[in-house]
């Protein structure tokens, strides 16, 4: 049987890839250290406190990773306006009916595994983009609650700007803390599903999904690429006419 004709498409620009891996690293560090802060390991030691700084280091790592996470996140929002079409904010926030149609289609094919022809997209598919939007919201929530908890002991103006956050939680830092801790598990569950689905696409579609976050290239069927280009030109026409 005849093979597919594939075209090499540069999908993820370098800043997007750097964002992705910095974000991944920050999330891993934040989850591990955050969990340890909530559940410190039991250490029986006869060493004097002056010779140890284990928990101080854990907290330092948490705060350092948090700052990396925040500024990286802010940069990604900026890149959502200046990046290429696969990085644009429109990939994440639904602005049209076709977006929702695509979400439903992807859900039926990839999640419910309905026997249909594969839905092949070039950048993010709509469902993935929409899920990333939710995880962006969760990230914003973590930044807000994290700074809200940190404001009380910080000397820098930036965290202090968030001193009002506990008032959203009935003025109780206890519940800010519990929420901050609970939402961490959302990131854990997200990571499991995200990594799995990347492998799923790599395995079923065979287009270099897994390696695309390394070099930025994906291998796209000629006709899919052309259809994508065509859709874009159509959208441009509609825009210029309007």
């Amino acid at each position, binding site marked *: 049987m005849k093979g597919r004709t594939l075209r090499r498409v540069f999908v993820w620009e370098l800043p997007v890839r750097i964002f992705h891996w910095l974000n991944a690293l920050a999330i891993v560090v934040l989850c591990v250290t955050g969990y340890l802060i909530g559940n410190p390991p039991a250490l029986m030691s006869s060493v004097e406190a002056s010779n140890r700084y284990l*928990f101080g280091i854990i907290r330092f790592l948490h705060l350092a990773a948090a700052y990396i996470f925040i500024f990286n996140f802010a940069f990604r929002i900026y890149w959502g306006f200046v990046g290429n079409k696969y990085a644009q904010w429109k990939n994440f926030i639904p602005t049209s009916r076709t977006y929702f149609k695509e979400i439903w289609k992807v859900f039926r094919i990839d999640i419910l595994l309905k026997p249909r022809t594969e839905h092949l997209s070039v950048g993010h598919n709509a469902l993935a983009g929409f899920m990333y939007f939710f995880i962006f919201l969760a990230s914003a929530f973590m930044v807000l609650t994290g700074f809200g908890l940190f404001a009380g002991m910080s000397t820098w103006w930036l965290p202090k700007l968030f001193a009002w956050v506990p008032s959203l939680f009935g003025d109780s830092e206890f519940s800010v803390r*519990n929420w901050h801790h609970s939402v961490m598990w959302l990131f854990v569950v997200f990571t499991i599903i995200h990594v799995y689905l990347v492998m799923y696409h790599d395995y079923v579609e065979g287009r270099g999904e897994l390696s695309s976050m390394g070099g930025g290239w994906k291998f796209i069927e000629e006709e899919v690429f052309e259809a994508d280009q065509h859709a874009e030109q159509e959208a441009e026409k509609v825009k210029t006419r309007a």
Partner: protein
Amino acid sequence: MLCPNGAIFFALFKFGLFLTRKQNENPMTAPTETKTRPTYYEELRERGYSRRDFMKFCTVMAAYLGLEASGAAQISKALMTTPRLPVIWLHFQECTCCSESFIRSSHPMVADIILDKISLDYSETLMAASGHAAEAVMQKTMKDHYGEYVLCVEGSVSDYGDGEFCCIGGKSSRDILKEAAAGAKAIIGWGSCACNGCVQAAKPNPTHATPIHKLVRGKPIIKVPGCPPIGEVMAGTLIHIITFGTLPELDRVGRPKAFYSKRVHDSCYRRPYYDAGLFVESFDDENSKKGYCLYKVGCKGPMTYNSCGVIKWNNGTSYPIQSGHGCFGCTEENYWDNGPIYKQMASFPGFGIESNADKIGMIAAGAAVAGVAVHALATNVQKMGLIKKAIQEGKDAEQELKNPLSKS
């Protein structure tokens, strides 16, 4: 005065503590009616305090308030020139531990100057009068010093029905508060009951115990929470009002910043053990003997703002953490409903008492892994044709590479 309120939640026992001592000059007879009220200093000298004692007191207060060196002079000047402040001190649903803390604060003059000399025009615990006579004094003070007096409230107010759970002299606590608040210059909420409802407001809160800031509008309210608040903190708050004639700087929740801007955790002498990762695992273990950090046995210091670690209690003798018990978090909103006392994490609503966020999270993560595994298996079944096709494609390509000519 409190005992007759049969319906009050906690039986309050009043001791005639000060009554014998103050027979001759109980606050009732204090000259509230004359326009020329004596200053604090005059009254103190009359009682036999030396000027040296007075200056010491001013210095101590300046230090507690965190004032600069000239602060002591400002305080002494204010106490020597300002006529004493009329004060009405109300007790509602509470245990009187705030009053107890106040009269036992470390510096003897604190109790004297405030309770004897601040012109406590009406205080159910400490005045000698009772019944109609006492009510008359309160009415008179409210009338004579309308817009001038400071209203101190100890205890929460029952906001249930007609307020029948807490009545004094036939009036509900809610009505008394509203009446007294109308002419007050400022209101001070003493203790957690008045500031966050404390134990009476804990779920299910049958009397609808309500902190005062939810009932009084349009009046400056200073919250001095704590169960009880530290006596020096109470004195310091009043001294600030007397000295500067203004409210002290308040934090987001309405507590004086001078005493509530630091977390108990950040001023804790056991903090190095926290930073070292050395924790008490249970109250009877070796780590407990060594005085390690109480974080894992539920210390709420990291979320609690108070000056326990700095001013301490009982003449600076000790405070809960120094005595080997974690902080309760008594100065914080929602006190008593902020999760278990001896655990760090609250139970997750709707999942049973023993379920904290981590247990739920681990179950969710486990479910995600299981779901993903099932999905992977299902993919191989459902998309078998597609996958086989792809593999065949690959094999064909391999053949072509080995044998380029076979393509044609």
